[in-house]
């Protein structure tokens, strides 16, 4: 990346902090996550960086494993949303008539359908796991991604260079891979980065309601829920996951913003013309 974008860098540092925590948690944790020897609701210090929760477990340890869950939720959901959303969006854009209409109507219904209800249905059908939460968030987001993809593809397909490619007998798969996807990619990738932040928030929300990763997995959302009752006496338990959640989502949104500056072909063109 030749152009420096301060937004991109700030975002990368903030999100990178959480990624670092998650990576370190894979090889080292201050305490065993199930270790309840710390004393209930101990304050920060005394061997526990942020104190302990109401069961005596180390908060910092839970934050570290929670960062892993947050990142997994973000990545997993966006991956599902991208796979299903881009495929459906491209198909809908190419299709004409009833198929396009039907698909668009289905997407509108899915977008209007509350993620929470979808998550409850999936949890009911499967069980409350991180996988169920990711599936629910991914499916809900795929509708948004599909609708955006459809519009972006339609706009590219109306360009003369697509007609020119068709004129020279280029097949649809080649046009899609060679012209359409590269041209919608910049906008799409910015949107997917935003969806990542939303997915992290959605997973925290689902976990808060008990629809995410089950205990003893320390999701930030569940940490918030558990610390809620004791917030006035031991605020660290709620503040710590809350702050990290905000840092990660702001970081990812800044990355999305920075990517827009770096990837947008119109700003690139503008610079070259100047």
């Amino acid at each position, binding site marked *: 990346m030749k152009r420096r974008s301060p937004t991109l860098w700030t975002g990368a540092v903030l999100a990178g902090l959480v990624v670092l925590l998650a990576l370190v948690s894979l090889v080292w944790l201050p305490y065993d996550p199930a270790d309840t020897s710390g004393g209930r609701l101990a304050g920060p210090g005394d061997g526990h960086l942020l104190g302990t929760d109401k069961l005596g477990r180390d908060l910092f340890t839970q934050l570290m494993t929670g960062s892993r869950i947050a990142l997994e939720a973000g990545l997993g959901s966006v991956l599902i949303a991208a796979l299903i959303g881009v495929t459906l969006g491209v198909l809908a854009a190419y299709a*004409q008539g009833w198929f396009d209409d039907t698909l668009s109507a289905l997407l509108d219904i899915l977008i209007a359908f509350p993620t929470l209800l979808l998550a409850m249905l999936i949890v009911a059908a499967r069980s409350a796991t991180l996988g169920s939460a990711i599936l629910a968030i991914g499916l809900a987001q795929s509708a948004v991604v599909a609708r955006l993809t459809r519009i972006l593809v339609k706009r590219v397909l*109306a*360009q*003369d*260079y697509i*007609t*020119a*490619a*068709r*004129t*020279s*007998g*280029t*097949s649809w798969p*080649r046009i899609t891979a*060679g*012209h359409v996807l*590269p*041209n919608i990619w910049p906008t799409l990738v910015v949107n997917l980065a935003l969806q990542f932040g939303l997915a992290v928030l959605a997973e925290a929300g689902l976990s808060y309601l008990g629809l995410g990763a089950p205990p003893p997995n320390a999701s930030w959302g569940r940490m918030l829920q558990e610390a809620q009752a004791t917030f006035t006496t031991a605020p660290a338990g709620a503040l710590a996951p809350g702050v990290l959640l905000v840092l990660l989502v702001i970081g990812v949104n800044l990355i999305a913003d920075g990517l827009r500056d770096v990837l947008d*072909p119109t700003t*690139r*063109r503008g610079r*070259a*013309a100047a």
Partner: protein
Amino acid sequence: MSALLEVRDLTIRTGTGRALVTGLTFSVARGERLGLIGESGSGKSLTTLAVLGLLPDGMTASGSVVLDGTQIIGASEKTLAGVRGRGAAIVFQEPLTALDPLMRVGRQIAEPLRRRRGVTGAALRRAVAEALERVRLPDPARIARAFPHELSGGQRQRVALAMALACDPALLIADEPTTALDVTVQAEMLDLVDTLVRERDMAVAFVSHDLAVVARVTDRVLVMKDGHAVESGDVHEVVRAPREAYTKALVDSARQLESALDSFGGAQ
């Protein structure tokens, strides 16, 4: 001898049934240079798109369009893919949108070359450089590596022309290829198109609203208005003695522009 392009009773309708082109009949022989002239909205560009089965979504064509022995109207996408490029290729009006902004120019020209001639690797790179040289672009190696936004309008339009010619079409459709260019570049571009098609004995359908431009590069002209053919014939005949009122108006306004310049002529 059968014509290269035989359009008979072509009617183009929008999805709501409004006719944009009605009962259009014309033909282009091999090596012949036809001008399609008319004001914006007269259906010229739609006609050229219909020739390749490339009408926008929702528009339908009826009648008969036979290009290089293939019936285009109602043909399957597979049949169309076979005749496109080989039968006819298009150069568009706006050179910026005619090139993929995110693809290096060389790769865009390589696509049709690879498909038409089956060359790859170093031979393909050489063919791309030759294609760029043929449209008089300096330093083809540098141009091939450039993105469209790094080129000037005139250069882009030459690249678009090179792309169309790379298909080695029997008919080159030029849809107002000089309208978006500076006047000085326009003249060069016209000369280039003229030379290249003469060299290859290629047929041309030259679409323009500018009678002077059409007169310069074509043998025969078809005047269109509101989706109808108004008049057609030898370009010199039509300019000298237009039969229809609309053609007469076109010729007169072109002459007025020219005489406006002539009135300054003495000063030079």
